């Protein structure tokens, strides 16, 4: 049961991480916030994204034996990146929920 909770946390952290790393690109930011007149604070988004990426690795290590955790984490990154890419192309508005005000600057 504890293992499942750690894995869910790892999935959430990876999804958040990939979302922030994607939004650090102005083109993707514009897909999500087309009318707000703001631009992304790229360095802050990238830093938060990388921190959450590391967090997801820590959560994977808590869930499994290290040899297994490293595989879960690498594959999780692929799944999370693909999911974020699909959200951006089909339902970009979903990504509005991840605290944009923390990362926006006036255009």
């Amino acid at each position: 049961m504890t293992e499942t909770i750690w894995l869910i946390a790892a999935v959430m952290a990876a999804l958040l991480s990939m979302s922030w790393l994607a939004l650090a690109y102005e083109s993707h930011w514009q897909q999500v916030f087309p009318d707000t007149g703001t631009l992304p604070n790229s360095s802050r988004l990238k830093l938060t994204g990388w921190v959450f990426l590391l967090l997801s690795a820590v959560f994977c290590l808590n869930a499994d034996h290290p040899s297994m955790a490293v595989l879960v984490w690498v594959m999780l990154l692929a799944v999370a990146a693909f999911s974020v890419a699909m959200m951006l192309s089909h339902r970009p508005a979903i990504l509005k929920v991840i605290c944009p005000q923390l990362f926006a600057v006036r255009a």
Partner: protein
Amino acid sequence: MFNSLRMSMGWVHTWMGLVLGFVLMICFFFGALSVFDREIDRWAIPDTRFEPQPMPSFDKVLKPIYQQLRPDPVDLAATERRVIGSLPDPETLKLESLFAYTTHRDPVLLIGGEFAIPNQPIDPADDHQHVHGRATVNPATGELLNDDALKIGSDWFYPMHFSLNFNWMMVGYWIVGLAALVMLAGLVSGVIIHRKIFREFFTFRPWKNLFRSSLDLHNMTGVVALPFHFFFAFTALVIFASNIYLPVTHTTLKPLHEHHEKLEAARTGLPHEPAGVAAPLASVDAMVAEAKRRWSERDMAGEVGFLSMNHLGDENGYVSIYRAGSDRVALVGEGIHFKASTGEVIREEPPRSVVSSIDEFLTGLHLQHFEHWMLRWFYVFGGLLGAICIATGFVLFVEKRKAGHAKTGSQGSRIVDALAVTTVTGMVLAAVGMLVANRLLPADLLGKGHWEQTAFWSVWGLAFLHAVWRSSPVAKARHNPAWREQSLVLGLMSLCAVGLNWLTTGDHLIKTVFTDTYWAVAGVDLSLIVTALIAFFAAAKLRAPVSEQKTDNALSRNKQVNAYD
């Protein structure tokens, strides 16, 4: 020949990818299915739909079963051709060694052994002096299962991804090995071509023209799963390197083989030859208990994955017990060897060296014996991403050239497109067609497995003929309607397979998911339904007219096109 490294890499990426991409599609798709090969076996052989169980008691369950084991008729015939004189009656051949193998996903147990033969070999250097026997056992009842029933997952889809089921002179293995090598070259050249690799992580614009959106998907599926693609191509080569691709032990070092075995036997204390003195067999269950106790002491409590015995009934006989690697990225290991007649421990294998641990990790990550359902599904996802990457590569090749080929009258794009249809929708049709045939053919049909294989190749062959027959619009720079038509048939056949499973076994999804949960069968049925939905969605999308003019204009604007020349 080329003005830049990127252009030369573009050439390598395009042409090597095209030629071996058809093989790589097979590797990725059937590799993805192999993640759940045992579950597909359960779907295909309804008699084995019960829960997986650990290795049963040897003394009470397995020992009597080995008395029913007989030499394999095919191996018997092959051996007869290599020896002087006729072989004795198979019923009289004596078992000299045996094994039993199971994993955490197997409700059935694979057992086998080697039967000694008295004949001398025609070739004096031939040291293969035995006939194999193999059987599948229901460990709950101790019954031998009908081995005529093809395990479609583990004996057809699984070997398809590494041998193409083309075993003559091991040609299939060599083709797949070459494809894996080309895959590595394709990954390196792909990274060199695409400079904005991180941006491509998240870029997919389905609203753009077909070339542009296919290129997005090709890049994205290539880069997000780059480590997966790299490691699977690399470990595929590692797994077969020592015994197929670089077989030094069977060639250059063969004269030392016998000598090495004797030295190894002296070092480990495991007898190389029988003593020629009859001896009884002590309790194997007691040996298993001792092995488990020792694993627990090493903080590696676990179940038996592999059990073998050598020199049966002889004073020098020994029993080897290996731990199943379900909780690690490993196969079986931590072997403990016992003297068969007394049950005393002869040898406990020491912890692995660094090199051996790396080798175990690399093979273990590919062969995935581990019990981790999320990771297994991630692997399926990775395999399908690889298949999408290659399929979109075919689309790019055709879309970039078909307008030009239409002007010059070349048939190149048409041929590639027909082959692409065959290896994308046609291949999935063949796999689903085999499952449909499995449910339509009677369970007691003699040679049922051969009929299923015939159905597989027939459906694939028909898909190829259909793709070629419908491909003429491509020569006029239009789209091949075979994509849409085969998608429709795939959707219908997938639903048909789910319906037939219900009709012939009574295992419908409400039962297998809710009332009498059995995820192996439910998972296959649900995957078939998802396949049907995707196929119908694709067919609906392909119905929409595509403006060829828009595609051509977009192509001329596209700055990346030159990279694909």
